[in-house]
């Protein structure tokens, strides 16, 4: 190990972690060349492949490496939160119709695609270079939306020439699709406000209706990761990098392979930003169809959009020196503090909004970044609840139960493309996200603002 491992967890979480291989993965990341500061893990840490899920690691530009396994297959998987001016009692009578409209308008499930949207080769290249702006330029969103997305909805340096034909093929008909697994679209209500002043800045109030979208770069991102893992296996050998796990294969940040991966990764990240922006347009359209008012009247506006699988160039203070570092976040959210230049002006006084989805039966949280997080974790925090049950174990727990009816009894409407996915995604499969965010709060790497409760869930 070249550095320490630092895991943010409660005593109970640590005990559970000993049973799986996530801690070994924290240790493996600590062996990578040029790592700066500790190999970090957020409180939603669980066993991943290569990096643990919830892993954060920063690398020096000269001595350090970039690893596709430190970003993951779903490049720029992320979350965005929309707020409305609606209160829960205005929406509850229409929830079934709203869930139907969202399920109809936003393709979900394995291999989902919109039959009416297949990008031409030239258009797809523009999506990869422009990200969310490509969607906004087609009248689906606003400049204000772009200001409320991490990196403005576009990572610089994207070069579509560096993507394989297969990656481009896989992306061409998947823009504007939710996908499957843990991805979801949720209509929620603000159940509790912890910090009224911060909530006011975010435009949140009790009983308010919000919408969360969780998805990423779909097949295009998976293919970029797979293509570059093969390149990095050779690069690691070429540059004499010893790997404790082949999934950690990597190349020096300054090498041609390292630079090319970052430029290809930026393409996939921009595809994901565009994906969430397009889904947002269809969410607004669905609300308009069901509630009979246009989205502007409903004030269905974007609070923020965060990436949680990404490697980014950022500046951080290390032992009193300001350094440019490549920060890998694998199942971790950027959480910049109040006053940071990359936090949108409207939130700069309170810190970057951080969106932490829980599970489909309980709740999600809205936090803001803190100075403590900037100092301890390179401005990072958790990204979700974190699984505790394997899919097989979750299905066993769900066997014989009617999950849809159980959710309905709690006032939650469910629409799902696959029944099997619902069983694998039951609440019991995840840690209680409230315990995760409490650890975040106590460690000072995030500040809880509000808790959201699901009203309608669309699962792939």
């Amino acid at each position, binding site marked *: 190990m070249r550095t320490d491992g630092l895991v943010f967890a409660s005593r109970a979480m640590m005990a559970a972690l000993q049973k799986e291989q996530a801690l070994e993965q924290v240790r493996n990341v600590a062996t990578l060349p040029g790592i700066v500061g500790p190999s970090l893990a957020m409180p939603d840490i669980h066993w991943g492949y290569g990096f643990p899920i919830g892993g954060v690691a920063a690398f020096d530009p000269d001595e350090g490496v970039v690893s596709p396994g430190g970003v993951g297959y779903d490049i720029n998987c992320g979350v965005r939160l929309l707020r409305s001016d609606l209160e829960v009692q205005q929406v509850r009578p229409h929830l079934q119709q709203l869930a139907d409209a969202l399920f109809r308008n936003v393709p979900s499930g394995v291999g989902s695609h919109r039959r009416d949207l297949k990008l031409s080769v030239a258009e797809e290249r523009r999506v990869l270079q422009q990200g969310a702006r490509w969607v906004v330029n087609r009248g689906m969103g606003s400049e204000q939306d772009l200001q409320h997305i991490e990196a403005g909805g576009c990572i610089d340096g994207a070069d579509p020439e560096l993507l394989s034909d297969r990656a481009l093929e896989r992306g061409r008909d998947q823009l504007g699709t939710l996908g499957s697994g843990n991805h979801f679209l949720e209509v929620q209500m603000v159940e509790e406000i912890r910090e009224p002043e911060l909530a006011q800045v975010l435009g949140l109030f009790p009983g308010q209706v919000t919408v969360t979208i969780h998805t990423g770069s779909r097949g295009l991102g998976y293919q970029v990761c797979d293509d570059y893992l093969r390149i990095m296996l050779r690069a690691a050998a070429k540059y004499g990098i010893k790997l404790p796990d082949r999934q950690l294969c990597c190349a020096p940040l300054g090498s041609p392979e390292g630079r090319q991966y970052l430029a290809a990764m930026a393409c996939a990240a921009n595809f994901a930003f565009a994906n969430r922006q397009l889904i947002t347009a269809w969410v607004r359209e669905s609300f308009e169809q069901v509630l009979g008012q246009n989205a502007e009247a409903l004030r269905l506006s974007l609070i923020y959009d965060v990436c949680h699988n990404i490697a980014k160039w950022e500046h951080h203070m290390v032992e009193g020196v300001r350094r440019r570092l490549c920060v890998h976040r694998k199942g971790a959210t950027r959480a910049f503090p109040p006053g940071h230049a990359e936090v949108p002006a409207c939130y700069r006084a309170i810190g970057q909004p951080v969106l932490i989805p829980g599970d489909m039966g309980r709740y999600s949280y809205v936090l803001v970044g803190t100075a403590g997080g900037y100092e301890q974790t390179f401005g990072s925090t958790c990204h979700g609840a974190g699984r505790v049950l394997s899919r097989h174990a979750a299905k066993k727990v769900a066997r014989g139960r009617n999950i849809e009816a159980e959710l309905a009894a709690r006032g939650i409407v469910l629409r799902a493309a696959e029944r099997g*996915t619902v069983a694998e995604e039951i609440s019991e499969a995840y840690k209680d996200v409230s315990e995760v965010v409490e650890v975040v709060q106590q460690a000072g790497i995030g500040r809880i603002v509000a808790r959201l409760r699901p009203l309608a869930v669309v699962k792939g």
Partner: protein
Amino acid sequence: MTADQKVRPWPAGMSGPAKKEGGAAAFRLLEHTADMGIEAQAASCEELFVQAAKGLLVVLAGGGETRCPVQDVTLEVRAGDVEELLVVWLNELLYLIQTKGMWPQNIELVDMRSDHLEAKLLMAPLTGQPQREVKAATYHHLMVSCRQGFWRARVYLDL
């Protein structure tokens, strides 16, 4: 084909019954908190790769009904070594299934070396989609080994 003697212990935490396909060839699914793994065994490397492919099809959970006509597809895969070859092989199958909408009904490996394989697949068009999305086969804890002529493999899938 011969292979380096590269044997590692079987991991703990395996679940589910082994799927016997006749003789010693089999696969079983491995527990993983977020994802899933496949462990396969066979008397030959060719059969080992077929078993791993069958494991992948089970993880994809069916594939729905297929409709005729079926189609012969020849697949050629190259990699740096036999472990990478296993990952590339499974990811090629995923591409055919998830992007081309084809489901393999029969898999035969006609040529196999440690860095190259050629397979003949009988593919049928899918009417729907598999029930579970698999992002990719990964290199995490990847293992292909041969001891006394008996082959074993382990590969984890990102779901």
